[in-house]
């Protein structure tokens, strides 16, 4: 009797997944109808998407389509631009990131960022990594800091190259090493999400490949959102892809970024819904 129950019920749960969202990974960011304004100028409008845990989500699209602007909403980096303003809803694990009482500093400790141009501090390699944890009060004492620095550098696939010169200036590293240092620096504060704003655009193909490998490794532990100009990169590394374009208003010549399509990367690159996406990914536009 009980055997029968097991025999009939077990296959049901394993073979046929229950309908809907439950097999998918939990949602980290839920973006609903987001618009970003600089003063009265609407830079991006109507962005709706879900970013899921331990996936790599790529933003692609032509220059000036607002990919980076949207990315910078996710850790409230746009707050640094005085006239920037956000409309719509952007929740992080259900909490509205732009709600009153949300401290951008707390947000950024959970949601790290890697920038387009490697921007190590003009300090030693060690101090670059230790900066975030020290500021956040994550470490006490030297040995704890040492361990964390080593861990972060290993995680950033840089340890073997720099372990003998941790006290040397980070400015002496190559561009690719500097960018991996910046990634290691970002994950040293143990964020949940790492935002990457065109992290390879200043790097050569070899360094780019290393960063991409690193992203694939980091995916096991972190949620990654990457803006990229490089469609192949999006196709190689990402699970989901968002395609943005710039819409030009014929009468006022105002350019507004808009999200055209957001779907699984395979689908975007093989069988997109929107004609504009298809033209872009096949290289006929943009």
């Amino acid at each position, binding site marked *: 009797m009980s055997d029968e129950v097991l025999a009939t019920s077990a296959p049901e749960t394993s073979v046929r997944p229950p309908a809907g969202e439950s097999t998918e990974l939990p949602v980290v960011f839920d973006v609903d109808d987001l618009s970003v304004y600089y003063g009265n100028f609407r830079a991006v409008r109507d962005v709706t998407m879900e970013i899921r845990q331990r996936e790599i989500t790529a933003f692609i699209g032509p220059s000036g389509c607002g990919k980076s602007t949207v990315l910078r909403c996710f850790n409230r980096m746009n707050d640094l631009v005085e006239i920037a303003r956000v409309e719509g809803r952007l929740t992080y694990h259900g909490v509205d990131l732009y709600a009153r009482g949300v401290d951008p500093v707390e947000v950024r400790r959970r949601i790290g960022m890697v920038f387009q*141009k490697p*921007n190590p501090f003009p300090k030693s390699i060690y101090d670059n990594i230790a900066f975030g944890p020290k500021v956040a009060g994550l470490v006490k004492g030297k040995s704890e800091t040492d361990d964390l620095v080593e861990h972060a550098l290993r995680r950033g696939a840089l340890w073997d190259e720099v372990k003998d010169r941790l006290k040397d200036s980070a*400015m002496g590293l190559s561009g690719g090493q500097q960018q991996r240092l910046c990634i290691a620096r970002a994950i040293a504060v143990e964020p949940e999400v790492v935002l990457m704003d065109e992290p390879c655009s200043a790097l050569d193909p070899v360094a780019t490949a290393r960063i991409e490998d690193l992203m694939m490794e980091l995916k096991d532990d972190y949620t990654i959102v990457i803006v990229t100009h490089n469609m192949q990169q999006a196709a190689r590394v990402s699970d989901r892809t968002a395609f943005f374009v710039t819409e030009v208003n014929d009468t006022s010549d105002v350019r507004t970024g808009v999200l055209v399509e957001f779907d699984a990367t395979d689908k975007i690159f093989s069988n997109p819904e929107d004609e504009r996406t298809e033209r872009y990914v096949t290289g006929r536009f943009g």
Partner: protein
Amino acid sequence: MTATQLTVADLGPDRRRHRTQRRVRTVMMVAAVLSVVISGLILVSLLGETFTFIKGLADTGTWSSLWADGWFPRRGQYSVATLLMGSLIVTLVAMSVAIPLGLAGAIYLSEYARPSVRRVLKPALETLAGIPSVVLGVFALMFISPEVVQRFFEAPQANLAAAGLGVGILTIPLVASVSEDAMRSVPAALREASYGLGARKATTCVRVVLPAALSGLVAALILAVSRALGETMVVAIAAGGSAGALFTADPLRPGTTMTAAMISQAGGTDQVKGDALTFQSLFFVGTLLFAITMSLNLVAGRFVRRFRNVY
């Protein structure tokens, strides 16, 4: 096909333009050389008179006058220590005002002020730099001394502290403006990196921007010290050492500095009154001042070079 033969002359310089260029070059070179020559001649006359002074002391066997109780050149008392100590006190007092205020102002202007506030404050600060030092000297004597120094301490109206505070106010704009430039030249990418790691504004400022701007800040500091050492008018008016001064290490006493000592002897006439070496003593002090400020500038230059291009 008959191609026209291209010669070197075709690609050569336009003759007339070439000549003009050479003339311009000559004029510029003369100007450059002239300024060097003039500086050289000044140095020669400075050193010449200084030599005469030292030789005069040697000839008359009055070396001891260098260790007199004070600086009274008309009476043949050339206590250089009095002047050095006076300059040191005035500079220290001035820096204790100018560095904190100037630096804080620079941090505010560069990191905190809204653009609209900055647009008003920066020119205001630069206006402060335009106040003639004579005015500040009178201000130091008539206001700072009675209202600040004498309010808290037992002191005569003319004293080194009041003069130092006046010089400090005079130096604030210099410190603020040079430090602000240094901080603003720190790339925004470094601030973003810091904010992106969850650092607050104050942390970003103290741990990222200030260290990255270090060379500029040190340059600002050394320039300010140079300026304070060289400041004459404020001290001449407010420090109370117009006829000379006794040696003192007390900022609340009247005193004089290297520059103020020179102006009080040389003011107004082409003849410096006093015995034979009074006139030459001024050049002796001048040489000393020149050596000090020049070494400061060299150190500043080295600092700036050493830390340049770190980002």
